Structure formats: structure tokens, C-alpha cells
């Protein structure tokens, strides 16, 4: 009986006993700054920012070193954990006989966000952008139709572009189109082409497109410099552009607003090609010569100095980048700007071919129908005519 009573008390006392033990609060449990706390782990699982600045810095060092003749004194003040931590956070003093620029980075932990963007939103939004642009152009063709030469054709032509100008344009255009196609193949290979055609077929295609993309880039850069010098003087903004833009190039208010050699819309195309094309070229060179041309840490530093991230409510941009991170940013920038310029070029190709009667001849033959020129570039025609009157017979 006494045993039964004892058991009775024990059973009832158990919960009390259990409660009387102090359970550590999981959110504060920590074994010191060198180890991550449960809170850190949970935050990381929730994709929240973890402040590990203290942990990163615990890598030992001479200031902690016991004298050389004491136990562990020869380790320079760094324990095993300190050494591994230094490698984990890329803080160690690594030396190697490998001459590669990034060879001293043994662990790079900033690659996943980049990979996720490259195989996710970059491809999705890029495809939407290009597809949407094509759709809009098709809609424009359906609704507005081809922009025709309205007046009576004269049968006379005016020279619009000399042969060397057309050469520059077509060098730019052909290289850009090849770059766009081979670039898209590289970007969408893993997600679209490998599942569709298999690894073996894509391997051959990828080797070929990479070779072409890398090398034809020089043709694009040469042509970009050429057309810049050919046409920059005709593309400086002036007052006629404001009037042209106010009328939406003739979409609002009817009639053709006056324009010089290039109208405001064309000037926008020109500067988009120069600025975006230039930026694609520079980031492309950075990718072509890996780790040699680092653009982003410096740029982010400049932007932080200006306080630019604050203007859009962002924290300062990271300006201490590993060589690999530099390349990651270069890749994303190169791809994003290329998508944007390709969308713009779709609109340009549309207007230069099916979209407008008489436009293609300017780049095809170099000569345009006089009536076309009077409608689209009235001020330019007058300039040309005035010059012809001064130098008859030319």
C-alpha cells in the first residue's frame, strides 16, 4: 500500500518536477559569438538577414598568440576553428601558387541569389519583355497599319546615307542580331534547350554559340564607334525635338511634325544604342576577361557616396565584393541591359522595314523617295535642297 501511495505521488509530482527545470529560451541560447545561435539559423531559414559580422571577425591572430614556446604557440594565435571560420567567410590570408585572380577565394557564399535570379526572374521577365514588345508591334500594325507615303510620289530620290554609313549600320545590325540570338541561346540553354534537345545536342550548340558570341562582339564594338562618329552631330537634341515629341511624332494631332535629318524618336534610338550598347560592351569585356575588369564595387561605392540607394529607400549597396561577385553583377547587368536594348531594337527594325513605307530604302539603297523625305524630314530636305542650289551640278 505504501508503495502504491508513493507511486501516486510520484506520478503527480512528475509534471511539477519537469516544470521546475529551467528550459533555455531558444531565442537567446548561444554558445558565444563564434557559433551561430538558434535564432540565427531560424532567421536564415526564413531568408532574413543574419548579423554575422562578429562571427566573421573571429579568426584568431597574432594578438591572441601565446608565446612560441607554449603549447599551441606556433599556431599564430589561430585555433582550428578560427582557421576554418576564416575560410568560411573568405577572411583568411590565403596564398597559392595558382596565378588565377580569384584563386585565393576558397569559399564564395554569395552565389545562390545570383543563380536564383539568373535562372528565374531574369529569364521570365526577359521573355515577357521581348514577347510583349513583339505583341505591341503586331497590335500597332493591326490598328495603325503601315505608315504610308501620303502624297504623290515624285519618282525623284535624295541621297540619305552614303555607302560607308550603310556599311557601319549593317555591321552594327548584323553583329547585334547574331549577338542577341547567341546570347539568348546561352541564357535559356539549361532551362529550355537542354530539356528540349538533350545534353549532347546542346553541348555542340553551346560551344559554337559561345565562340561566335565572344568573337563577333568585336564587330559590334567597332561598328558602335563608327556610327557614333558618323551620326552624333545629327543627333544632338534641339527645339524641333520638343515639338516633334509633343505631337507624338504625328500620332497625335495628325500631320507630320517637321524634323531634321533625324527626328526625336530616331535620336532616342541613337542614344539608346550608344549608351546601352556601350554599357553592354563594357560589361561584356568584363565577362570576356574574367576578373580583370571589375566594375561594380567601384560603381556601388560611388553611388553610396552620393546617397543614391537612399533615394529609392534602399540600404547602401555592397562595395566589398569578391571577384566572383563582381562577375555575377557583370553577368546580370549585361543580360538585363541587353534585353532592354533588344526590345528597343525590335521597334526600330519594325519601323525600318514593314512599319513604314519608303524607310528601308534609306539603308538599303542609300536613296529615298523625295516625297517620303518631305513628309518625315521636311527640314532636312530643305537643307539638302539649299546646299544643292549653292553647289549646282553636284
Amino acid at each position, binding site marked *: 500500500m505504501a508503495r502504491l501511495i508513493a507511486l501516486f505521488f510520484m506520478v503527480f509530482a512528475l509534471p511539477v518536477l519537469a516544470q521546475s527545470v529551467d528550459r533555455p529560451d531558444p531565442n537567446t541560447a548561444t554558445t558565444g559569438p563564434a557559433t551561430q545561435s538558434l535564432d540565427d539559423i531560424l532567421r536564415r531559414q526564413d531568408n532574413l538577414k543574419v548579423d554575422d559580422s562578429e562571427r566573421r571577425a573571429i579568426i584568431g591572430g597574432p594578438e591572441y598568440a601565446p608565446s612560441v614556446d607554449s603549447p599551441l604557440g606556433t599556431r599564430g594565435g589561430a585555433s582550428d576553428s578560427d582557421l576554418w571560420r576564416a575560410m568560411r567567410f573568405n577572411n583568411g590570408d590565403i596564398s597559392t601558387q*595558382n*596565378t*588565377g*585572380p580569384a*584563386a585565393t577565394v576558397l569559399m564564395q557564399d554569395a552565389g545562390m541569389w545570383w543563380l536564383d535570379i539568373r535562372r528565374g526572374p531574369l529569364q521570365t521577365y526577359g521573355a515577357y519583355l521581348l514577347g510583349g514588345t513583339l505583341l505591341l508591334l503586331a497590335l500597332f500594325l493591326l490598328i495603325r497599319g503601315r505608315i504610308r507615303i501620303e502624297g504623290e510620289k515624285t519618282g525623284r530620290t535624295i541621297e540619305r546615307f552614303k*555607302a*560607308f554609313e*550603310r*556599311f*557601319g*549600320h*549593317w*555591321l552594327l*545590325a*548584323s*553583329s547585334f542580331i*547574331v549577338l542577341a540570338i547567341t546570347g539568348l541561346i546561352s541564357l535559356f540553354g539549361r532551362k529550355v534547350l537542354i530539356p528540349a534537345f538533350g545534353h549532347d545536342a546542346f553541348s555542340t550548340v553551346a560551344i559554337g554559340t559561345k*565562340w*561566335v558570341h*565572344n*568573337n*563577333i*562582339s*568585336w*564587330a559590334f564594338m*567597332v561598328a558602335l564607334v563608327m556610327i557614333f562618329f558618323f551620326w552624333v552631330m545629327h543627333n544632338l537634341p534641339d527645339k524641333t525635338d520638343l515639338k516633334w515629341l509633343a505631337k507624338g511624332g504625328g500620332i497625335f494631332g495628325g500631320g507630320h511634325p517637321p524634323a531634321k535629318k533625324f527626328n526625336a524618336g530616331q535620336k532616342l534610338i541613337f542614344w539608346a544604342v550608344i549608351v546601352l550598347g556601350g554599357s553592354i560592351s563594357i560589361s561584356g569585356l568584363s565577362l570576356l*576577361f*574574367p576578373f580583370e575588369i571589375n566594375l561594380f564595387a567601384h560603381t556601388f561605392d560611388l553611388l553610396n557616396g552620393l546617397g543614391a540607394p537612399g533615394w529609392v529607400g534602399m540600404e547602401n549597396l555592397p562595395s566589398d565584393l569578391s571577384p566572383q561577385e563582381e562577375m555575377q553583377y557583370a553577368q546580370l547587368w549585361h543580360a538585363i541591359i541587353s534585353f532592354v536594348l533588344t526590345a528597343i531594337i525590335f521597334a526600330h527594325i519594325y519601323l525600318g522595314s514593314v512599319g513604314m513605307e519608303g524607310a528601308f530604302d534609306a539603308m*538599303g*539603297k*542609300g536613296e529615298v523617295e523625295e516625297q517620303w523625305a518631305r513628309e518625315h524630314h521636311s527640314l532636312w530636305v530643305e537643307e539638302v535642297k539649299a546646299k544643292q542650289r549653292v553647289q549646282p551640278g553636284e
Partner: protein
Amino acid sequence: MKAFVLALCAAVVITVGANLILNEIGFSAQDTTSSPSVRLDSDS
């Protein structure tokens, strides 16, 4: 049309030429990051 065809030819020439020059100056990651005692290709 002639300008167009000429531009296409130039694009091909520049592409092939760029490759020749870059190989000549040993630009590839393989060349810049390894010493001659490293053989990455089976044929070199």
C-alpha cells in the same frame, strides 16, 4: 545592298580575326591561370 554584303563579310573577318588575335596573346582563362606544366587539353 553592296554595303550590306560588305558589312556581313567584315563581320565574319572581324570575328575570325578577333579569335586569332586573342589566342595569339593567350587570353583564355586556361592560359592566364596556369603554368606550362599544367596540361588541361589532351592535345597541348
